[in-house]
């Protein structure tokens, strides 16, 4: 007889605070780790590993923004600027002081966190779209400063070439090595966020998001925790910037412009605000969907017309389709992919006795 759980029943606080609410999630998490660490590099080609690498980078950035917007409720559209802070910090440290990524990676994050705290100060007085504009200003100010400070940006080109990361004397330049490098950072980011959210800090964030006055009354220092949120979120962004820098071999402010901030916003809104899994799903979705659409259209289209004729149509159609799909997904499930997944899960949990 197959036994199934019939609900969340907890008998003590310890199990209520557990990382995994059900045994199956522990198995699922373990399965995912095996899949991405052991199976994927063996089975997938370099091309697909590249896709996963890009997703892994995006996951870290999306988690950071989700901490700020999804959990603390502070809208930021300067996320890409914090990435550039991390990127240039790491690039300068790696080139000028010959430091390994084990130092430059957290250093880039910390520098971004420091800048993030400064940008976060207006959040103490303003909310919502007003804060969005303040962070937009930060995006432009940081861009301008990098662009006009040769000591930061490495000269008139505002781009610094960085060598591939090395670990224990091994240069990580093979696609699989880079993939592991990015994957490990992404997994650490996921676990860290998951735990952060369950901690006092995370609960304070959520309290501020839900009702900041009430949060203050129950004894949460809104001042402190809002700045924490900015610092942690910017730390993630900075790390994302460092990852981009090592992955592409160059830090260039043109990779971190306003459009990128919007892309990350799109990721967490599509994925699901205030959800770790949502950030991951959103990163997958926004990174892979345009590629999937293109491949599907190429697959279908080349049966009817020549490639160069098709190319004119594809790029336009892809934009439309991407936009439409986002709208459709959000209409079907306004709470994002995370909620969609929960619905699927709940459906199958009681299947076939759904009533």
């Amino acid at each position, binding site marked *: 007889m197959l036994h199934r759980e019939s609900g969340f029943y907890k008998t003590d606080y310890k199990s209520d605070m557990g990382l995994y609410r059900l045994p199956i999630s522990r198995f699922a998490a373990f399965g995912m780790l095996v899949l991405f660490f052991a199976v994927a590099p063996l089975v997938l080609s370099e091309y697909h590993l590249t896709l996963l690498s890009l997703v892994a980078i995006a996951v870290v950035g999306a988690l950071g923004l989700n901490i700020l917007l999804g959990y603390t409720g502070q809208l930021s559209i300067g996320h890409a600027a914090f990435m550039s802070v991390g990127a240039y910090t790491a690039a300068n440290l790696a080139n000028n002081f010959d430091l390994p990524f084990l130092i430059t990676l957290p250093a880039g994050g910390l520098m971004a966190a420091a800048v993030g705290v400064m940008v976060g100060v207006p959040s103490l007085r303003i909310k919502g779209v007003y804060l969005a504009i303040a962070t937009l200003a930060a995006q432009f100010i940081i861009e301008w400063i990098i662009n006009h400070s040769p000591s930061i940006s490495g000269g008139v080109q505002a781009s610094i070439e960085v060598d591939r990361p090395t670990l224990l004397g091994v240069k990580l330049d093979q696609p699989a090595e880079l993939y592991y490098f990015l994957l490990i950072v992404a997994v650490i980011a996921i676990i860290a966020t998951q735990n952060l959210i369950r901690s006092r800090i995370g609960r304070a964030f959520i309290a501020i998001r839900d009702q900041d006055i009430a949060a203050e009354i129950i004894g949460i220092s809104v001042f402190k925790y809002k700045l924490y949120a900015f610092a942690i979120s910017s730390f993630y962004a900075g790390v994302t910037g460092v990852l981009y820098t090592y992955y592409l071999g160059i830090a260039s402010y043109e990779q971190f412009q306003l459009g990128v901030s919007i892309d990350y916003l799109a990721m967490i809104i599509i994925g699901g605000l205030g959800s770790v899994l949502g950030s991951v799903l959103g990163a997958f979705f926004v990174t892979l969907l345009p590629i999937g659409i293109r491949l599907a259209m190429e697959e279908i289209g080349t049966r009817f017309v020549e*490639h160069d004729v098709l190319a004119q149509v594809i790029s336009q159609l892809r934009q439309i389709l991407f936009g439409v799909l986002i709208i459709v997904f959000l209409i079907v499930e306004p709470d994002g992919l995370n909620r969609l997944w929960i619905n699927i899960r709940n459906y199958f949990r009681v299947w076939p006795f759904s009533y």
Partner: protein
Amino acid sequence: MRLLTTLGAAAIVASSIAGTASAKDIIIGMMCDRTGPTSVTGTALCPGYHDYINLVNSKGGVMGNKLVAHEIDHEYKVPPAVEAYQTYKAEGAVLVSPYGTPMVYALVQKMREDKIPGTSAGFGSAAAGNGERYPYMFPIAASYWSQAAAAVQFAKDKLGGSLKGKKIAYIYYDNPAGREGLPVLEKLAPKEGFEYREFAVPPPGIEMGPQVLDITRRYRADFVIAQLFGRAPSVALKEFKRAGFPLEKIVGFVWAGSEGDIQAAGGWEAAEGYNTIQFAGVGSDYPVLQEIRDMYKANGSEDPSAMKYTAYYNRGVFQAAVHVAAIENAVKAKGGSGDITGENVRDGFYEIKDFTLGGLLPPLEITRQDHEGGGWVRIFKVGKTGYVAETDWFRAFRPEVVELLAEEEKAK
């Protein structure tokens, strides 16, 4: 049911990601920006590229080997460009064409590791012309340094053969590419005896009344060099016109003089006199373009609409032509076999000789040191109804530009 549809859609997307194209032909990876912030260029350039490739294929390809130009639109974003590059690599492309400065930067290291050559006509830093440092990246077109040198030479010719005591205003879009002309001016100013001043236009470059007034009223420049992008060139033309500055005394860099810019500035009559630097010939009066038109006619279709935008369309033809020439040399070296590698194609670039397509291309001379091909430009003036050639293909102050390259190399 709704659930099943969603899962089904996801399965289709997933399965299409898993499947990659296979082909035995010579594959060129061609990135494009038909959408995104720079789409005005891509929508004219990419058709030009395809048309030339189709023309070559219609004549039997390269020594019997068919060319396949796989276009992927990256929306001028870096991650899609990285993905596109990996697609090309998986398909066995022997040549890629990254589009846009950030993408060139993001891929240059990977291309060197994978030994796949690529071109970056009109993008990236001037230092990328250094073939020893970037063995697999070929700018093939005049860098901003070469353009700045040519602009100074042009100003000299226009101002009566000497720049002694003259004032040159350098108005530029305030980003790294915009500033790139400055080192050349700095170097040439004492040599030629002119003074210059820089006038930055902050992005997005649609507001430059103060700068133009500064140039025309306060600084009273004798000549203006404009390094602008996007909407900025047309705004600049309108402002200079309003300020009563003779447009004959303005020369714009390569991204500031397309038909689109002139139309946006009020049309040919309004912009008459403005000089533009080009690295591929403009206008439709080239034999190769006639061949393309004939090809369309033979197929019973009309001329492609992108052909009207000759500045960018011709650049697409230019890029394709240089690519095909390099591939042809590689195939020749292999005795006519289409089984070539990226390294073969790279060597093919060095063999390109006397290949100008009836004036559409400059007399490129790509060497192992100089991937810029000599830094040739041609200046066209805006006439009443179209471009008028002001100069022939020329290059200026080449020793100074080469000197700058050496200094840049030393600084690294």
